[in-house]
């Protein structure tokens, strides 16, 4: 195959931007085009549910720092609508098209919309994924609503609730699971998250779902009916229902893609219909669906900031020099800030069968929980104890035994492993938000 001289990157957020920079840094001198469905230059999403909602940072102050000149063409505000792999052409929603000799797919995810269309259109309904969402929700919070209802207590929902309390706004959180963060961290650490929420004054309802929303004659949302028969009145509702992968534009393209994402190999190469890796199409970021040594047979998607950057580099390296980089060795990591607590994780806590507090204590709000599967440690979450995570990272990479046989400072007396308590394995399950 000839050397690349016409690269198109579809997706102009963190993964797309870092891939473009890595290409230039790696010596690529040919044409480079970035396509983004949003009108904005690449911006950073994690602060949107944290510093932006709390009012510390304005939405327009979240643009990503540029690490290397890109010298590329930007097609912002226009989504990709189709892909023809035989013709090596990306169709755009405005009717134009882009030819490529190498393609990077970094289309990420979008917020899962409220499932009932009529209710989704009510005034005061919000999602949180984009800069525009954050600007709208921030404005709504600044208008001092009487109560905010947050549906879904994953990371994004929990952070929204935290920002509401920071602003002194009454907030109700409705979560189907037994605790906040249960799907990501399990009910043991989730139980601590529940304590944080209630201590901060959140009206937390777990094991409950919203059956319908209701509005007023002006078409503004007034509240929600819950599965336990209760009614919550609220003038702002934030639906934090997780993410949907932006793969529809790949339908029929010959590249494998679906609701779980775009499968790729350890070199970040997309797979063709017969399962063989392509040599001209690469995938990175939230949309990718890949094998990770810690996860065994299942492919996983990681909606993690660090994964987007890492895969962007791997994709760019292999695009320029096939076989020069692999994604397999990077350990997943994510963080969240909520209710004054710093949550930081390495590995795959949600793949754990058992969980154990290995440093500190839940009651003090400062602890590390380790997750084990098949007698090995596979993940760890530190709450206000992030300084120890490099050690747990080493232990996970080394396949250390679980329950651990080490002795460490601040080790709780008599701690034993407990069932991790994750609801059954969901194919393609990802972590919500953060």
């Amino acid at each position, binding site marked *: 195959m000839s050397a690349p001289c016409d690269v198109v990157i579809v997706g102009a957020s963190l993964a797309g931007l870092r891939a473009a920079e890595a290409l230039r840094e790696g010596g690529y001198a040919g044409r480079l085009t970035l396509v983004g469905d949003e009108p904005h230059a690449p911006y950073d999403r994690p602060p949107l549910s944290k510093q932006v909602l709390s009012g510390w940072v304005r939405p327009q102050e979240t643009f990503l720092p540029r690490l290397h000149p890109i010298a590329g063409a930007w097609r912002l505000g226009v989504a990709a609508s189709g892909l023809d792999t035989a013709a090596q052409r990306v169709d755009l929603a405005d009717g134009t098209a882009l030819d490529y000799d190498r393609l990077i797919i970094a289309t990420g995810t979008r917020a899962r919309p409220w499932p009932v269309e009529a209710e989704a259109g009510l005034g005061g309904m919000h999602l949180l994924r984009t800069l525009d969402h954050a600007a709208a929700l921030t404005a709504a919070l600044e208008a001092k609503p009487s109560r905010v209802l947050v549906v879904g207590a994953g990371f994004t929902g929990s952070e929204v609730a935290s920002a509401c309390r920071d602003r002194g706004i009454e907030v109700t959180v409705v979560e189907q699971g037994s605790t906040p963060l249960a799907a990501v961290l399990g009910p043991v650490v989730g139980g601590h998250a529940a304590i944080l929420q209630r201590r901060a004054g959140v009206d937390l309802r777990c094991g409950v779902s919203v059956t319908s929303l209701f509005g007023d004659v002006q078409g503004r949302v007034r509240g929600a009916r819950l599965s336990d028969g209760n009614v919550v009145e609220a003038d702002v509702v934030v639906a934090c229902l997780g993410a949907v992968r932006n793969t529809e534009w790949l339908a029929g393209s010959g590249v494998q893609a679906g609701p779980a994402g775009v499968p790729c190999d350890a070199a970040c190469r997309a797979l063709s219909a017969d399962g063989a890796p392509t040599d001209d199409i690469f995938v990175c970021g939230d949309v990718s669906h890949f094998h990770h040594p810690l996860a065994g047979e299942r492919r996983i998607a990681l909606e993690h900031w660090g994964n987007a950057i890492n895969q962007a580099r791997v994709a760019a390296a292999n695009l320029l020099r096939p076989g020069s980089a692999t994604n397999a060795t990077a350990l997943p990591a994510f963080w969240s800030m909520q209710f004054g607590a710093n949550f930081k994780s390495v590995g795959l806590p949600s793949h754990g069968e058992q969980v154990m507090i290995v440093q500190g204590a839940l009651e*003090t709000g400062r602890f590390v929980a380790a997750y084990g599967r098949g007698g090995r440690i596979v993940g760890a979450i530190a709450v206000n104890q992030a300084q120890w995570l490099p*050690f747990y990272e080493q232990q996970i990479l080394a396949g250390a035994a679980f329950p651990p046989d080490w002795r460490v*400072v601040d080790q709780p007396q008599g701690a034993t492993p407990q069932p991790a308590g994750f609801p059954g394995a969901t194919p393609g399950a990802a972590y919500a938000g953060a």
Partner: protein
Amino acid sequence: MSETLASDRPQTPMQAIMDPASRADPYPLYEQLREKPVWHEPDGSYVISRYEDVARLIRDPRLSVEPQNSPRGGQGLSFLNMDPPAHDRLRRMTMRHFGPPNDPGRVEAMTPALEAMVTSLIDAVRGQDRIDVVANVSYPFPVTVIADLLGVPREDEPRFHAWAEGIVQSQDRDPREPGRRTESAEKAFQELAGYMFDLISQRKGAPRDDMLSRLVNDDGPDGVMEPGEMISVSVLLLLAGHETTVNLISNGMLTMLRQPHLLQLLKDNPAIAPGFVEEMLRYEPPVHFTFRGALCDLDVGGETIPKGSALQLILASGSRDPRRFERADTFIADRPNNQHLGFGSGIHACFGAPLARLEGQIALKEMARRLVNPRLLQDPPPYRFNPTLRGPRALPVAIDGVLP
């Protein structure tokens, strides 16, 4: 370890490093150390000297600094010799008065006062053609800063100087029990503690604008410090605040005098001072080792270090490890990605680092700018005894004048 004993048997590199004769240039011995990842010393301790190992182990929760677990460590220096959670609580309560999030901008706000101090110290040597950088600048500057910050009267300097010398310079001198203080050091420690107790008592209920007042009158989220905790914290800050930055400034000036192009570089580009000082912290750090005890068996470099062992982590060797730093023995003022071990790392990373950085930047920048044609009169200069808190006892320099 006594010198007569040491000469009776073959020396390991670490034993040679402890020898005062090696004080002026321990770096070739560190290079010898790095040939093996782990040295098992005749005294039973394990010496770790490569960057990757030191940087990893210093953040490893399987290592303790508490005296009962760390046979070679010090004792009684407050949170420096405590493990979590006690360490975290005490350090948190102290940090509240020294930086973000509770007191952001505290160190930065000291800049004008620090500049004024250095200006007057350099003004004071006008008319001399010979100065001692240690006595004239590097000692009095940080000592005055820490005294003012804590609220210790400047005029008591001779008293706490003598106590500090007694405590720090006697470390590792007791041949019977390394790590334990000698009797004279213990006496100095008790006297300094008594002195701090009196100061703290005065501030209780009668606060002034100083850290002792804040420590004694604060009732933050972690509650109130016990009197004993307050004494040990304030003794630690006073000692650490004036036994380390002194060496940073002296070692920095010595390095510039030996490599006059560096002096010129800093003089012409004072704005590079922050990166310059970072490189100094890598190249000639004020603190050379740190001690830990193993809470369980550890694997390091293919060797098992058994539970209960003492570990000596050679920070200054790690910072010179060519596996991590290109041209590790060269001072590169704008070295990229300079994650040196000069302030340690992990939960015991230097508490005063922001202040030490600022002091080092101001002192080196001003000496480079104002001293006319400075020349080293004695190379190497005489060194202090302590191999860990390593620095010159005096740094005699000839000058042709002092610029305004």
